[in-house]
């Protein structure tokens, strides 16, 4: 198990989604014919782009308030605005990925095993689930269809699906007839735009690189032990659940924790102060052991205020766990390159 995702969809789309093994995220604002703005389109790409074949997927059905699983990703995310699958007259749900019943838990998926969302919330309330605070859309918080979750949280979901399997499943085995797109669909990696102008664009690049580029992972973990294949990471990670303070990316490997704060353009001293505060908040989570764990802060930006590198060097004399990484938009803003600053 490399990565795990929870994807939200409506009750009416679940039957076809499950049977065909294809999930789609929207292009239009729900219930309208207005295209989502660039920020939202890029947030959808950002949330899906780190998906790899073999990752685990769960599905959250909004109306029913249930979570279904366990499925395995059989094709990572791509863009298909030609092939109509769902009954919605306008929406093609073009940001897609393919999945199948997970071979290790085939019996669960074949009988549409599910749990109530409230079962999950009980674990969140007890602090046992780390990478989720809610699946609801809340005011002032970005609405998201797909959320990457930590593998350890996925394992809890799998155990809950087993716990409730006897009571929460269909009577009969359900058919699975996998959909396969034409070979010329575009990978989401080729759908990024406005890198350097919209924060979600560079965050999407970073999420992709964390999943696919071991040398960047080593750069991020510099000074810490790492096996790039074994890291786990999530985006929009809630550091403080009650106040809903979130960090852009949280990466973990054994006893190392990395908080990544991304700025579209210039990183200033306030960004550093905020990230250091978030590090302190993370250190208070019950699952952090300050004797064994190390928490590093990384600030990613196109530029840095002149005083920042010097400031970090001075802080390093007391506590050396802050790193600056600079990015440069390339290919007309369709991708980004990263380099160490200090």
């Amino acid at each position, binding site marked *: 198990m490399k990565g795990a995702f929870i994807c939200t969809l409506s009750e009416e789309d679940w039957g076809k989604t499950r049977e065909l093994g294809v999930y789609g995220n929207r292009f239009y604002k729900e219930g309208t014919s207005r295209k989502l703005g660039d920020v939202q389109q890029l947030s959808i790409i950002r949330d899906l782009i780190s998906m790899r074949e073999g990752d685990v997927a769960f599905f959250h059905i909004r109306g029913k308030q249930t979570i279904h699983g366990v499925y395995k990703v059989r094709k990572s995310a791509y863009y298909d605005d030609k092939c109509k699958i769902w009954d919605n007259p306008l929406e093609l749900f073009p940001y897609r990925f393919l999945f199948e019943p997970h071979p290790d838990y085939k019996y669960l998926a074949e009988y549409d095993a599910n749990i109530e969302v409230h079962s999950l919330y009980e674990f969140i309330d007890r602090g046992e689930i780390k990478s989720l605070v809610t699946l609801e859309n809340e005011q002032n918080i970005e609405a998201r269809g797909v959320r990457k979750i930590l593998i350890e949280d996925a394992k809890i979901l799998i155990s809950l699906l087993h716990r409730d399997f006897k009571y929460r499943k269909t009577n009969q085995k359900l058919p699975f007839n996998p959909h396969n797109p034409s070979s010329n669909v575009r990978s989401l990696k080729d759908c990024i735009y406005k890198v350097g102008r919209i924060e979600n664009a560079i965050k999407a690049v970073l999420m992709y690189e964390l999943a696919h580029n071991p040398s960047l992972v080593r750069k991020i973990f510099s000074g810490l032990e790492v096996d790039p294949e074994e890291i786990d990471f999530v985006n929009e990670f809630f550091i403080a659940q009650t106040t809903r303070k979130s960090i852009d990316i949280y990466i973990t490997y054994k006893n190392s924790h990395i908080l990544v704060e991304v700025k579209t353009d210039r990183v200033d001293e306030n960004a550093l*102060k905020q990230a250091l*505060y978030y590090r*302190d908040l993370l250190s*208070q989570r019950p699952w952090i052991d300050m004797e064994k764990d190390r928490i590093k802060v990384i600030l990613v930006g196109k530029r840095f205020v002149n005083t920042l590198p010097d400031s970090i060097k*001075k802080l390093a*004399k*007391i506590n050396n766990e802050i790193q600056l990484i600079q990015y440069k938009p390339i290919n007309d803003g369709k991708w980004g390159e990263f380099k160490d600053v200090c």
Partner: protein
Amino acid sequence: MCVEKIIKDQNPLLTLKKNPYAHGIFKEEDFQIEVFETNETKKYLILKKKINGTIGYIFVVERDILSVEEVKTIYTQYKGIVAKLSNNNFREVELVVICKRTNDEVLESIKEYNQKYSHRPPIRLILNES
């Protein structure tokens, strides 16, 4: 630059142990203070701040010469105390360093720390000219 106070005392930790309000480093009107732990070998003192129950701690450490290496060592000790006494909540533990001599490099680092960790209590530096 970030030296908060200058005192003259042959044994400041002993003085503070006997009277936590000595030298005016801590003020009676802020908190009730009592000694929680002392360590003469490692030259530190932990004070407990109270108002209506315990509300925090003060880690007071003494060094003759405060070098960058010493600051790092003190900070590691401080982190351990924060972990032990306040569940990793830095807001609840103050750090006070008493030293006879230091250098600009240390002063600049402490100044930077106090600016950037704006949500933590600042590191207070007391110069002892005894």
